[in-house]
């Protein structure tokens, strides 16, 4: 079993115990059995690790420094424990060797209570083998989360690899297949460690030429969505490669067309649409006919097929796009809508892009995947600028798992629209602060990228 699996098992067992003490008397068999199970698991783990620790930071829960991903399986238990830790103001929860059933049951019985009762109950019960560290106003980033630089390196390395790949295809130069294969695994590992680190970088936009930047962003968004729905690492590798390669057919089109700043004529538009067809042979050049190449070929061809059978290239309406193509379709549209381009100087705000996608679910987009995508990004994705009910302007810096309308924000402008290095507020914490509407940061001369890099 992986550490992640150990962690999700402990979360599930803790969830079961807390739920049991909410319903039954502490001496009831259901409670006793649930406690016995978690203690047995903890004891097994304590044979390997000196302690078993759950840490909450922002909307993450870590099990012995390994972040537990919110996946569609086990979502409810992780969400519950996360919310509990948050509302009780617990930063970390450590289980030490020697833990027994009785201590566990008493802990569960106070864990179910409200913050004040929990705090009092914890200090008066004298737990010896369950240690709680409470959050302070400004919790420091856990050391194992200080991966920001590494994630940035991975992102920019991936951008470089994507650029080289497309440029080499453009110029008929040899392709460095190994680098492009390797970078996908780096991206997967980075996403596993910190999903939102990479997603934040996809929100910055225009870090490079649109074609390269967009290709990489679609790859990352697809990986994040794929990871959220629980795809295996092997499938993620295929999906990520395919996401990056989805627009590769554009290298077969005249550069003037790709970089044209005015609106395209109908003829030019028809030519541009050919990139889905051309993608096939470019992928064969870039990847050969290995499993990833074959899947990527299909995705490049289908990434403009709509859920209802419409879209291009023209195809039999009964032929449905495969799951991976439907994922890339969503990520491609989202990134395209939210990125400024020559002929779209003002892009869609992420919130409105998601609203358009919500409206077009069942028509253009797979409805279930659209839901998961919105769960992943939240209704106000990272990088969104929000007007708050207290008159301040804030920037979304983190998602709040399970609270898609209440992200974690940083105040960037005060009530007088003056730039400030404001505090970080978790909008899900009943502070009375609410979102009025999303706005363009540019309106206030704010460059969100400066906050993330």
């Amino acid at each position, binding site marked *: 079993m992986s550490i992640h699996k150990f962690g999700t098992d402990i979360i599930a067992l803790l969830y079961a115990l807390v739920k049991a003490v909410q319903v039954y008397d502490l001496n009831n068999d259901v409670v006793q059995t649930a406690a016995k199970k978690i203690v047995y698991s903890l004891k097994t783990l304590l044979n390997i690790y000196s302690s078993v620790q759950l840490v909450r930071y922002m909307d993450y829960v870590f099990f012995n420094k390994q972040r537990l991903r919110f996946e569609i399986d086990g979502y409810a238990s992780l969400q519950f424990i996360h919310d509990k830790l948050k509302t009780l103001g617990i930063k970390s929860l450590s289980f030490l060797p020697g833990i027994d059933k009785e201590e566990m049951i008493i802990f569960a019985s106070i864990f179910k209570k409200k913050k004040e009762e929990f705090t009092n109950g914890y200090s008066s019960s004298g737990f010896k083998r369950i240690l709680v560290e409470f959050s302070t106003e400004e919790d420091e980033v856990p050391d194992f989360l200080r991966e920001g630089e590494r994630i940035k390196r991975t992102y920019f390395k991936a951008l470089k690899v994507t650029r080289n790949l497309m440029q080499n295809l453009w110029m008929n130069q040899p392709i460095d297949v190994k680098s492009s294969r390797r970078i996908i695994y780096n991206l997967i590992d980075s996403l596993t460690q910190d999903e939102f680190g990479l997603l934040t970088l996809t929100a910055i936009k225009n870090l490079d030429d649109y074609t390269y930047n967009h290709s990489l962003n679609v790859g990352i968004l697809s990986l994040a969505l794929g990871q959220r729905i629980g795809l295996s690492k092997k499938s993620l590798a295929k999906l990520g490669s395919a996401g990056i390669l989805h627009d590769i057919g554009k290298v077969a089109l005249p550069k003037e067309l790709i970089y044209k700043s005015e609106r395209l004529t109908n003829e030019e538009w028809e030519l541009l649409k050919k990139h889905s067809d051309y993608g096939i042979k470019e992928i064969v050049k870039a990847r050969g*006919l290995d499993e990833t190449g074959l899947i990527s070929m299909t995705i490049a061809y289908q990434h403009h097929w709509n859920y209802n059978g419409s879209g291009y290239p023209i195809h039999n309406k009964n032929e449905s796009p495969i799951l991976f193509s439907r994922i890339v379709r969503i990520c491609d549209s989202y990134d395209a809508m939210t990125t400024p381009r020559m002929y779209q100087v003002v892009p869609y705000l992420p919130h409105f892009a998601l609203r358009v996608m919500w409206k077009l679910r069942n028509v253009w987009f797979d409805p279930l995947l659209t*839901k998961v995508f919105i769960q992943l990004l939240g209704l106000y994705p990272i990088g969104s600028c929000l007007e708050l009910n207290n008159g301040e302007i804030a920037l979304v810096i983190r998602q709040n798992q399970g609270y898609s309308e209440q992200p974690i924000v940083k105040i960037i402008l005060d009530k007088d629209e003056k730039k400030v290095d404001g505090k970080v507020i978790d909008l899900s914490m009943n502070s009375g602060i609410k979102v009025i509407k999303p706005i363009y940061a540019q309106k206030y001369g704010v460059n969100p990228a400066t906050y993330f890099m």
Partner: protein
Amino acid sequence: MESGPRYIIQSLAKAVKVIQMYHINHPSARNFYNPLYEKITIYLKDHPVIEYQIDQFIISNRGKAVYKEDEKETSIAFRLFRNGIRNISFISGLSFHELIKFLKIISKISKDEDIALELWEGDFEHINFYVVEEEDEVIDYKVPDFTKMDIDYDAKLREIIARENIDLSIPIKPNLAPDELQTLKNQIAEAEQTSGIPLAITTLISYLNTEKVHEIIDILKELLELCIDNRNFYDAIRIVNKLSEYPDINPVAKFETEPIIIGFKDVINTTHQETFNEFMNFISFFSKKSIPYLVRLMTFAKLKKRLQDLRKAVAYVAQDDPTTLAILLQDQDIDVLVNTIAILGFIKSNETITLLEPLMNHHNAAIRTEIIIVLTELDKAVRIARYLDDDEEIVRIKALQSLTRLKYTVIYYDLLNRIKSKTFRNLDFAEQREYFNCLVANGGHEVITQLRKMLFKWVFFRRKRYSVMRKLSAMALADIGTGHVLDMLRRGAKRRNKSISSACEMALRKK
């Protein structure tokens, strides 16, 4: 046996060294990795995981160095570290197969090998590892330029809302209902199992349905080769079907060579009937050029049914033109000859007899037998009757069976005379029985009288020997099986004559 993390990593290092010197399958290598697997398994019985941290020349477990080797060429720590691997764990449930795959990867000597990439692609279930990206490369990144533009952003926003007709009052509830979650899970399970080849073929065919593009055709041809190599005839047929729409393309031409066709011998004896059936469909696209090789391929068939199917498939390839097989009728190989004759039987052409004429009296009984089968298919009873005097019993029996099937009434009196002749009693029982079967098939009403006479005939001498004739007559009567005949047998069974009664009883029992 010592099985702690220190011993395990040291055994692993030794195993890697030996694999590099010999080969993974070499007995010396086995002597190292078999005990290594045992050590790991023993340790993992009590511990869910063994975790190692990798440094440049040192490997540690729970902070303690358990392996140290400063020599870059031989150090496994250095080999892993150089590839960015900083942590490796073996998890309970590790299979022998996984360990071997892992050892193969980390034993690769070439400096060009990317061990991290291979470990990633190895998709290990019970081996975890953590890789960091090379730090030696300078990657510049800076905040993208930002210039404030003179744009009315609020107006732009209103424009987008109006254009997209966005109703901001509509709530967005992205939670999945249980049935939606299940649907998604099913879709994921299906996607995880889907192979790239059928998908790519569907895509390429879809493309060609709108436009004929040579590059796409070439990719399909490459995929066709891949399918054939993988014995995936189902997808191969999909490709061939599509490419056959183009008159200037013969997608199977490349496979119509002797080495490739003979190479299909594994397919004709495969345990997967479906693969064989798909192979049969696939060869139906072959041209006449492939026939000699396909006939040779038949000699490898181990199952009679499969052989027959192959013969039918080749008959289809020959397209009702028996002359394409003429050259093979001169072959010296008996198996080739037999198969060629059998295929001619399926073609059912008038030219067949002419082609077979030189072989009618071939010295080999198998050839003559096969010819009888073909003659049967062509309804040539007169020619078959000639084989009643063949030297080989097997040929005569085949001829009798064919005449039975064809109902050649002209032969009736000849058969009767043969049965009544003294030499008939020298034949084996099996052949005698075929004579009676043939007699019944070609005899009409008169045959009952004859059989009754033979059954109840009163004999003085050689009674015991005649009892065989009674049995054969009784069995033939039972085969006719009308009420009148069965009454006759029942009465016979009550006769005092033991030879008659036992023949009748036996016939009735078998009935």
